């Protein structure tokens, strides 16, 4: 299945990959149901080969949309401007992504500044007469105010419904201003999972920013990441490689040279899937087909594959041996101190697979985990990237492995099943509930925290810090009020509403 880079609209995840947002069972079962190997789930689930059965319930809590991911990706390119073609409410996201941008710049030791997002501020009359004139005005404002190297345009639910012709405005102004003006189609309703927004941004970058006639740089490696600290430069230096960080905090020039790199890697297949595959497909930049760099097994394999592709095998073996020797004594101490502790991971999909591996390396029990979505396959379709199977095969099964798109009402029951001592989390919405139940959370704002050999030590130290917060949490738990009905809290199956609806739909509920 080739990515279609010819149209401005990215194909969404559920169509490309069969992404689901609700499922409940053991990790081994989900891995078996997923397409890499192991086929579909039976007659009930339609014809698509990589269709995994999905539970859809009547009750849903606020999720996240693709446009938000466009804001946090395209909106955090350092010398570009993102226009939000939308009513002012979509512009609210400027606040959080400014904060993340500023703190990300500080972590990366770059000059701290506000981001550059402009909302076209559409109003009721624009819904009737269309908003393209305002879009054109905002593009001109962006140009006059910042002289950006590129202008991105994110669409919204409103502009999608009224049918504004964003593409033709963009191409007209691209010609006039002589910089890339890139429409990113990311209407919130278009995809049930926000990760389509990553793809929308990456699709636009490959189509309109990446250099079409690349001069190869044989020591340059694309790292697809978010805002985390720079852990890749020291690692890759050991192999004589340089890092090209994208998409957040990159410059337009850094994006342009994506096609010139020797390879592409990511910290998480969910995020990197589309861009890495597109670069390989369109420009022959090889994507590193390996497990993600978490725990010894993943990191060893990841480094070896990167070394193989870039012709640096000898350095890699020396580095791997050196790092194993360096981290093992402290890792052993951490294992002693974490003995008997139970952890729970609630993050994006592929990232969770990596984090669970690290917890298991630390000797922490992981009986349950929640991922916000599941991609039965990534865009490469290469089984070496089957991160869930890698987890199950190397670190054992996770008996309670749930897919739930940030549904807090289910999270209560999921935690009751396994009663963890702490949780690892990145996205908002769930940790406050855990807190009120007395369970501290380690928020991973720096997403590179647990990566590679050092990441195992980092995460171990962080967990020790977090466990100390138990005192605050116990006190809070004793005095807390949850907005859920007692009957719901007593319910042992967090997916019961969806199962009921499914059974009713089949007319066989008893």
């Amino acid at each position, binding site marked *: 299945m080739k990515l279609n880079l010819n149209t401005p609209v990215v194909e969404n995840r559920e169509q490309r990959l069969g992404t689901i947002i609700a499922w409940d069972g053991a990790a081994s079962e989900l891995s078996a149901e997923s397409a890499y190997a192991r086929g579909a789930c039976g007659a009930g689930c339609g014809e698509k080969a990589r269709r995994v059965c999905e539970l859809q319930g009547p009750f849903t809590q606020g999720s996240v949309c693709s446009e*938000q991911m466009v804001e946090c990706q395209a909106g955090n390119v350092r010398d570009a401007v993102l226009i939000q073609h939308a009513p002012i409410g979509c512009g609210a996201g*400027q606040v959080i992504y400014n904060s993340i941008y500023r703190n990300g710049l500080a972590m990366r030791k770059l000059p701290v500044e506000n981001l550059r997002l402009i909302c076209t501020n559409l109003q009721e009359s624009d819904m009737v007469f269309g908003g393209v004139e305002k879009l054109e005005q905002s593009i001109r404002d962006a140009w006059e105010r910042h002289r950006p190297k590129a202008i991105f345009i994110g669409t919204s639910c409103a502009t999608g419904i009224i049918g504004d012709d964003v593409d033709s405005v963009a191409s007209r102004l691209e010609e006039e201003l002589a910089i890339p003006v890139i429409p990113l189609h990311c209407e919130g309703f278009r995809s049930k999972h926000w990760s389509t927004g990553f793809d929308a941004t990456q699709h636009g970058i490959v189509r309109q920013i990446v250099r079409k006639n690349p001069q190869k740089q044989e020591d340059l490696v694309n790292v697809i990441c978010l805002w985390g600290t720079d852990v890749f430069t020291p690692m890759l230096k050991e192999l004589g490689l340089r890092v090209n960080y994208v998409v957040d905090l990159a410059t337009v020039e850094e994006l342009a040279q994506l096609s010139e790199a020797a390879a592409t890697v990511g910290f998480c297949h969910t995020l990197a899937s589309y861009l890495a595959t597109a670069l390989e497909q369109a420009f022959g930049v090889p994507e590193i087909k390996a497990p993600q760099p978490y725990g010894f097994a993943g990191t060893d394999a990841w480094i070896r594959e990167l070394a193989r592709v870039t012709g640096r095998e000898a350095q890699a073996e020396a580095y791997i041996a050196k790092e194993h020797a360096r981290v093992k004594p402290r890792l052993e101490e951490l294992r002693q101190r974490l003995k008997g502790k139970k952890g729970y991971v609630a993050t994006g999909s592929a990232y969770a697979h990596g984090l669970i591996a690290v917890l298991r390396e630390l000797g922490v029990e992981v009986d349950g985990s929640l991922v916000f979505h599941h991609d039965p396959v990534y865009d490469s379709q290469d089984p070496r990237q089957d991160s869930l199977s890698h987890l199950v095969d190397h670190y054992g099964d996770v008996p309670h492995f749930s897919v739930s798109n940030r549904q807090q009402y289910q999270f209560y029951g999921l935690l009751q099943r396994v009663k963890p001592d702490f949780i690892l989390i990145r996205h908002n919405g769930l940790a406050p509930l855990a807190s009120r139940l007395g369970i501290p959370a380690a928020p991973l704002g720096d997403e590179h925290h647990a990566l590679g050999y050092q990441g195992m030590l980092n995460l171990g130290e962080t967990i020790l810090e977090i466990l100390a917060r138990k005192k605050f949490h116990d006190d809070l738990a004793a005095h807390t009020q949850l907005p859920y009905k007692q009957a719901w809290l007593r319910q042992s199956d967090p997916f019961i509403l969806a199962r009921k609806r499914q059974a009713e739909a089949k007319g066989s509920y008893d």
Partner: protein
Amino acid sequence: MSHGEGLRQSQEAVIGKTQKTNSIQQIRYACSIAALHSACAIPRVIPITHCGPGCADKQFMNVAFYNGFQGGGYGGGAVVPSTNATEKEVVFGGMERLRELIAASLEVLEADLFVVLTGCISDLVGDDVGSVVKEFQLRGVPIVYAETGGFKGNNFTGHELVTRAIIDQFVGDDEGPRDSGVVNVWSLLPFHNTFWRGDLAEMKRILEGVGLQVNILFGHESRGVAEWKGIPRAQFNLVLSPWLGLETAEHLQEKYGQPYLHVPVIPIGAKQTSAFLRQVVEFAGLDREKAEQFIQKEENTYYRYLEDFSDFYAEYWWGLPAQFAVIGDSAYNLALTKFLVNQLGVIPGKLIITENPPERFREGIREQFRTIADDVSVEVEFEEDSWRIHQLIRQTYFGHKPPIIFGTTWERDLVKELKGAIVEVGFPASYEVVLSRSYVGYRGALTLLEKIYTTTVSASA
């Protein structure tokens, strides 16, 4: 302007010339559906949002999280019920999905009242949300709805829609007797104002101090829906803000024949607070002597602290800022300016109002600033786009030393450029953690003084 012309102009010339357009960079308010915060600001009330999958999260994370890290409270947060509308609802309408969500919410959630709010999708495809909600109302479910599509207005106007929805669809008609000495307070916009919880608590405290019984309506000091049910029985409504709440008060006057008192300036510091309380005592016909006792006691405490503070104010070697700018919505802008000018003697450099108040209230707001003190008159500007706001500040002469800027996180870079000091007092305040802090009344003024001068002093070396 043609492209060639644009290119020829130097960056500086362009900056000077930039005209007001539709563009808003670095937002200072959200859209109507952000008024979901007005629902969850009432104890045990839960909003249900009928909108795209990102709307509820976006409004919460930005209005309530990266703005003082206030948290969502009992019924709020990033995970309020939402239809998370998909293409299906766009094409076929979302009424069935909403009906299903409301029914499921009743099974899962424990609330005294649900407030359904709509987003762009529902309002554009024309869902008849009223009829869906009505089905539940007829079954006796405490639930109301407001159409708050993002293109219809901002969260200030959305707040009045939600308030009106609760009054008309939940509180309902009331012919009962009035309770003298009871007041409904309509003031700051919950959550959008970073300090609303603490401020409403202080307002309630001082109003009770002069002998009133107070329906504060929002926040931890509110008794929730019982208090809202009591709205029609109050002797009067107090609108304590330049304009927000006036529409509600006018509606209540019409609906229940309730009079209202409009005080545009939220009081900060003893001078303003005592004057405010006396005005309320007069209007409500309260026992003056009792009220004076409270005022004297509060003033006494306040001024003893001010005496202590005067050592610092008189003698601090390294100098204090003499001029200030406020960039914020009219309520806090007016309150701060009145306090800084009248009680501290700081000079106003530039005042910019950012919440886009309805046209009919603007002249009244201007007039308040023109008469800010006997000897000081200022012209305020109304501007929402931070790019233009920052240009206005850059073009202002603040005298021989840098000003102190009362603004938002958006001003952090600007303040560095001006080598001034910043106190984040409004949305978004992403570098403040706020629990019960208040900047109004007697006690809040002291906290505000601590904040202003801690900021100044800590930046001095």
